[in-house]
């Protein structure tokens, strides 16, 4: 009837609105929606097309192979170049020729690294695994007689070859787990293992290497533990790798003359000069010795343990 036509009209309008709404919805929906699921399929490729910022050390090797080889040989091989130097990003792209619009200066990578950088990993913290190499900077400086306050780690340590290993680190010998006091105790106890009743029986170096330890106690470094030089890196509960450290640069870590180090705490020498001074006395050719990596031990077996003893025990040159 005419006078209720409005009811029909309003519902027709409503129907038109709904239908046109559905049509518009279909038209506006992105085409790739629903390709893989309830989302826009194209977004997968969009996300995957993001540029990589880090490149990995294999790419660094392309140009920096010398330092790469040094780095790869030593204990920091597991630390990526980009962790300390920052991401390769533009630097790599520039030298790959992938990016043209930046200057050479902008493509530089930062070389310097602060004290904090090393301490990110190596600061002594209660929560860090006790077998991980860590220091309290204050204690460390005190021990070494370092008097300066702002001395960077890199003044003594080389980040690329922290241990100055002569043999490749991955070829280092596997050795049964060595237990230090600090693995269980918070600080070095006053009494030794044998002085405490009921202390768990722990292998000491002496148990397997009696001759060397006996010889060592005669020498000047006997106040130190074996592991101070024969660094041990624990890989799992039962074993790890042991390093020899006969490199002269390792000796120089403590003994090289530095302006910030107290010469009375640790005897120090000015190294290249030392060779020249002593060559004549020792009746050796300074020139020959300069490239010899184990040069300190040639003369200073008194201070370590007799490396000849090792040759006698093993019956071969080492």
């Amino acid at each position, binding site marked *: 009837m005419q006078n209720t036509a409005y009811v029909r009209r309003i519902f027709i309008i409503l129907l038109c609105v709904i239908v046109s709404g559905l049509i518009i919805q279909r038209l506006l929906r992105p085409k790739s929606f629903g390709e893989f699921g309830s989302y826009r399929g194209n977004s997968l490729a969009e996300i995957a097309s993001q*540029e990589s910022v880090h490149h990995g050390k294999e790419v660094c090797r392309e140009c920096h192979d010398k330092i790469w080889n040094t780095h790869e040989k030593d204990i920091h091989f597991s630390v990526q170049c980009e*962790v300390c130097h920052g991401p390769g990003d533009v630097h790599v792209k520039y030298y790959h020729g992938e990016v043209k619009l930046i200057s050479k200066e902008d493509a530089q990578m930062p070389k310097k690294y602060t004290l904090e950088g090393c301490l990110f990993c190596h600061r002594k913290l209660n*929560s*860090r695994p006790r077998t991980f190499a860590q220091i309290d900077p204050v204690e460390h400086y005190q021990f070494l007689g370092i008097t300066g306050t702002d001395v960077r780690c890199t003044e003594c340590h080389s980040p690329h070859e922290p241990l100055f290993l002569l043999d490749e680190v991955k070829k280092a010998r596997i050795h049964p787990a060595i237990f230090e006091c600090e693995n269980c105790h918070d600080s070095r106890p006053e009494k030794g293992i044998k002085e405490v009743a009921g202390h768990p029986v722990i292998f000491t170096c002496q148990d397997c290497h009696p001759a060397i330890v006996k010889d060592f106690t005669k020498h000047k470094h006997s106040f130190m533990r074996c592991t101070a030089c024969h660094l041990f890196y624990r890989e799992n509960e039962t074993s790890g790798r042991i390093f020899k450290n006969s490199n002269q640069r390792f000796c120089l870590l403590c003994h090289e003359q530095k302006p910030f180090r107290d010469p009375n705490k640790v005897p120090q020498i000015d190294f290249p000069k030392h060779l020249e001074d002593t060559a004549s006395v020792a009746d050796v050719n300074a020139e020959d010795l300069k490239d010899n990596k184990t040069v300190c031990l040639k003369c200073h077996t008194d201070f370590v343990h007799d490396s000849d003893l090792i040759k006698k025990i093993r019956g071969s040159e080492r």
Partner: protein
Amino acid sequence: MKNEQKKLSRRGFIRRALYNTAGICVGSITLAAFGKSEDKPIPQMTDDLSEFDWGFIVDITRCIGCGACVRACKAENKVPDSYFRTWVERYEIDANEDVHVDSPNGALDSFKENHVQDKHIVKGFFVPKLCNHCRTSPCVQVCPVGASFVSPDGVVLIDKKNCIGCGYCVQACPYGCRYLSRPPGTADKCTLCYHRIHRGQSTACVLACPRKARVCGNLKDPDSEIRRMLNERPYYMLKPELGTNPKCAYIGLDKEVK
């Protein structure tokens, strides 16, 4: 008669006006609809995605809390300040079994000192955290527009072009790994470096970790490192009671870690 004519013409005018308006509306929307195409096609994914199911392992026994992963992720993905796609938590437990947890700026600058200074700490460890890429992810379930989704290869991703920035997914994540920063006003989170894993590179955090405390790999590959580790070591997941089926396994997970 004049009045009626006037009425008619006014009525007619209004009717015509309405029809015209309707027509213009429909026309412009249709034009807009057809004009609205998606952006130019990007190089399509060539991998067969169904062969992959990306998983992750965090080895708490190996983490030293250096924060290299946090820094690498920030640089790789340009994560804005005070927001984190990954972070490292530190746990210190004292002799009274009190637990002290902290994560200063997400461990971006590592840890500067012990958190607890005045008590004897009997147990401590670091826990790196990141998106668990859950199989039945609550963040995917609650997204109103389908901008949060699980890819065919098992990575939970965000379609930045579709996201309206409502923040519902941020609320729904039980692990706190999502964030909504303005700009750009869209939700964001760890993408498992989707752009890197599809180029055969490792994720930025796995690359940066000097201790192999993070492992990423294809769970569908029986020879992969991740499969081998999951078969050899005991592990646990975070908040399994919520039914999210997370794919991030934690080796050495302690009960104090939530």
